[in-house]
């Protein structure tokens, strides 16, 4: 196994994903290659540092607990049915996340959900106009027929 092969396997070794033979070859290479050995030691040390970072408690901004409690005060009791507006808001957010965004000219983006909303509104308007026109035409035909009958 050469250096590029060993480097390709380094993360899998660290994650414990290598089989017996690959592990043996990997370790044999590290024993005589100072460059790969250094990279491996750095990567192992990094994992230790990151795990230790997970133990470090970070302080939220001052007054955080009070702000949470102010928000909690506006909530209904736990377990009670959620207000319809909140449910609608959650559904819209879910749609936002599921459908993603579309890129517009000029580098701006827009939620696909909004585009769909406009498309549905446009279709509804077109259908509404179509039905109204149909009703108007029907009324005209009826009044013409009535006029003809009177004549």
């Amino acid at each position, binding site marked *: 196994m050469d250096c590029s092969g060993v480097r390709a396997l380094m993360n899998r070794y660290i994650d*414990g994903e290598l089989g017996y033979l690959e592990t043996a070859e990997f370790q044999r290479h590290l024993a005589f290659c100072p460059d790969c050995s250094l990279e491996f030691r750095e990567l192992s040390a*990094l994992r230790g540092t*990151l795990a230790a970072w997970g133990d470090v408690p970070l302080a*939220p901004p001052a007054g955080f607990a009070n702000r949470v409690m102010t928000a909690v005060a506006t909530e209904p009791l*736990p377990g009670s049915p*959620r207000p319809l507006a909140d449910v609608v808001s959650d559904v819209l957010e879910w749609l936002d996340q599921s459908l993603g965004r579309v890129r517009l000219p000029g580098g701006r983006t827009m939620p696909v959900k909004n585009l769909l909303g406009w498309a549905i509104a446009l279709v509804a308007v077109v259908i509404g106009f179509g039905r109204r026109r149909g009703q108007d035409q029907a009324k005209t035909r009826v009044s013409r027929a009535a006029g003809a009958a009177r004549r």
Partner: protein
Amino acid sequence: MASSNWEKWRLPADPSPADLARAAAGERQAFRMIVERYQHMVYSVAYNVLGNHADAEDAAQDAFLRCYRSLPQYRSEASFSTWLFRLALTAAIDAQRRERRRPEPVDVPEVAGEAAALAPGIDAATIARALADLPEDYRTPTVLRDVYGLPYHEIAELTGRPLGTVKVMVHRGRAALRLRLRAEREA
């Protein structure tokens, strides 16, 4: 081997069943006790996933609101800390999926209490900056894998990404962090 670090979040003792029942019944003082006891844990998770204070505070608050709403559904099979930890992770990842509302910050979080030395030549501010500067696509999977010890398949599930993609992102995140920390040490 993949091993979860979630156990260490049990350090704040779980609230007593009586306190949890009071909070689940809507008693604000009982819930405040939960917020005060777990705010560092929840905020740390949010900050490490999101990499800035403003988004982290919003996500941490959202996590506590989710906790308040779903307290009646909490079952004691899992420890309360583990349950709340997962709520915090989910809230942070959901916040990340939404369009970012804040510019990328360079601010460093304040460590609560005394932080032990992380590694020779590496202090808390260095690691916080290095993580915050990682591209978002690399940071979240790397944090979930190496800071919190989640198995790859759970990261894939939480982030909604294919397993192979998650692994590649973690490997790249590690590579970027290794070079960054080497440069910091040499500086």
